[in-house]
């Protein structure tokens, strides 16, 4: 029996605000436990929530970028359950009428084609605190309780672990680009739960879905889904049925494990939050927020392809990071060489970024400096090999390309007669190779060019050398 994999993801992103969702405590990460607390977020008797206007704006901005329809009126709801990290005994979220619905996002599926993943809904809610445990007991830190979250629920449109990762990566990229979330998965401000089910190929009924919680890295997401798909396949093939449950990913063993089973599904007793009035999103607000949305990665990619005549793959890579794209475009502006600039960035620059595990913003060679180097190659002042040498020198010093070339006397020999002199010298001592060349071994040319280059200490222009040799040898 062949099965179709059906995956949906629920992503929680902490909104980039100064204060919490419903109170004025700082939402900063990493402070000493229970220092960013107040009567509201510790649920003292008699406290009431007051909505953070910036959280609303950032959530709407996110929903618009995800092509969602913003509901004119959305309602807050209480999700009631008992847990120590939930001080009120309920979480203020949105249920029946969320902030936004029916959006989509484009990802690259494995064949290099675009696939649209539907977004069911985007809504506002507050975060719970954090529990830690040891052998003796558990401990609750409420610094995070009340932090503003946006929850993004996808349609079950993904059909492989790779697509799921692609989607999650795309979402992270969008949130970074919009600056609505810090997207720091180690700090837990971007979290992912996956819902996975299998159904027989061609069937129209979904299978039972299993939820896997807290997959907070792309690697874990991919591994967890792969394992779970296999697990469910094995169960079904053995004639068993899938139980609806919640599982956790055990990263030390790369398996998913069942959480304690409950007798029944959770009953959250949802009802509209009486302490918060319905949220209205009028046209003026939406227009203002829409205007604040920067060029998003997909649009950027398509524009770069058209504007710079670079291919889809190059455009995808360069637009995958806002700062990288900005760097690239700055270089192109100065060099006028989109393809050449693209090559330099993708090979040399990104090599260094990956090696040193740094971002382009920490890269020591500015776009101006790199542009200067590339222009020197473009103008024939130095050749490609020399340029690479200069590039590496630039990494270690704060000198410009011009300075290094001048200091080391690396300028290409422009004077053709000087090159011709060396070519003549080499021809004189290469009788054997010339004989081979004239016999049809054209690749000997490469060897001869190499000898000339060596004799010129790499400063000859290789294409000039090539031309001269051909001319002399006929």
């Amino acid at each position, binding site marked *: 029996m062949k099965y179709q994999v059906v995956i949906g993801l629920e992503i929680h992103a902490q909104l980039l605000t100064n204060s919490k969702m419903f109170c004025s*405590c700082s939402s900063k990460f990493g402070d000493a*436990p*229970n*220092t960013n607390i*107040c009567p509201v977020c510790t649920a003292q008797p008699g406290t009431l929530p007051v909505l953070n206007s910036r959280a609303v704006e950032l959530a709407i901005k996110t929903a618009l970028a995800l092509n969602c329809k913003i509901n004119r009126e959305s309602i807050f709801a209480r999700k009631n359950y008992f847990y*120590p990290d939930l001080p009120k005994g309920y979480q203020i979220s949105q249920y029946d009428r969320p902030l936004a619905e029916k959006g989509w996002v484009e990802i690259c599926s494995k064949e290099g084609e675009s696939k649209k993943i539907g977004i069911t809904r985007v809504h506002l809610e507050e975060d719970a605190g954090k529990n830690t445990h040891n052998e003796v007991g558990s401990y609750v830190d409420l610094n995070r309780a009340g932090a503003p979250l946006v929850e993004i629920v996808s349609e079950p449109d993904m059909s492989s672990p790779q697509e799921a990762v692609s989607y999650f990566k795309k979402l992270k990229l969008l949130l970074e680009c919009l600056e609505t979330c810090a997207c720091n998965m180690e700090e837990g401000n971007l979290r992912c739960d996956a819902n996975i089910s299998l159904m027989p190929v061609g069937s129209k009924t979904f299978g039972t879905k299993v939820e896997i919680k807290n997959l907070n890295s792309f690697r874990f997401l991919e591994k967890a889904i792969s394992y779970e798909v296999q697990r469910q396949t094995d169960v079904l093939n053995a004639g068993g049925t899938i139980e609806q449950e919640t599982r*956790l990913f055990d990263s030390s063993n790369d398996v998913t494990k069942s959480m304690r089973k409950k007798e029944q599904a959770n009953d959250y007793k949802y009802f*509209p939050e009486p302490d918060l009035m319905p949220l*209205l999103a009028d046209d003026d607000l939406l227009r203002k927020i829409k205007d604040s949305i920067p060029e998003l990665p997909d649009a950027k990619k398509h524009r770069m392809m058209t504007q710079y005549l670079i291919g889809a793959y190059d455009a995808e890579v360069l637009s995958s990071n806002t700062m990288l794209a900005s760097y690239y475009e700055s270089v192109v502006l100065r060099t006028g060489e989109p393809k050449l600039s693209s090559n330099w960035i993708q090979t040399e620059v990104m090599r260094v970024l990956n090696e040193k595990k740094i971002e382009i913003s920490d890269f020591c060679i500015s776009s101006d400096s790199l542009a200067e180097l590339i222009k020197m190659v473009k103008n024939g002042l130095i050749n490609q090999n020399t340029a690479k040498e200069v590039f590496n020198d630039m990494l270690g010093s704060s000198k410009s390309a011009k300075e290094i070339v001048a200091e080391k006397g690396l300028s290409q020999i422009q004077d053709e007669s000087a090159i011709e002199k060396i070519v003549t010298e080499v021809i004189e001592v290469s009788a054997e190779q010339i004989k081979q060349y004239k016999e049809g071994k054209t690749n000997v040319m490469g060897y001869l060019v190499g000898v000339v280059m060596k004799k010129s200490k790499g400063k000859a222009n290789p294409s000039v050398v090539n031309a001269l040799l051909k001319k002399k040898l006929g």
Partner: protein
Amino acid sequence: MIIDKKIVKKILDLSALELTDKDAEILAVQLSSILQHMKVLEGVDTKNVNPMFFGCEEEASTREDKVEVFDADLIKKENPYIEKGNFSVPNIIVGEE
């Protein structure tokens, strides 16, 4: 519909309360009174009526995203169960909600 022991137990679990069997029986009778209320309301025509979940018709109000610091010690100082700055509880079995 009958409010039986099973329903009463479910309600008590969801409310994080426990009652003696005798009191649970009394509760079952009292819960049945709710059904009386419901029977009355069932007969009321509410087609196309917008439910009134809020006490008033105000619009949402919001506050500026500004940080204000509250003296956290006020909240912690009377609590004898604080350990290393955290509120302590019996062991939560990880994975149980």
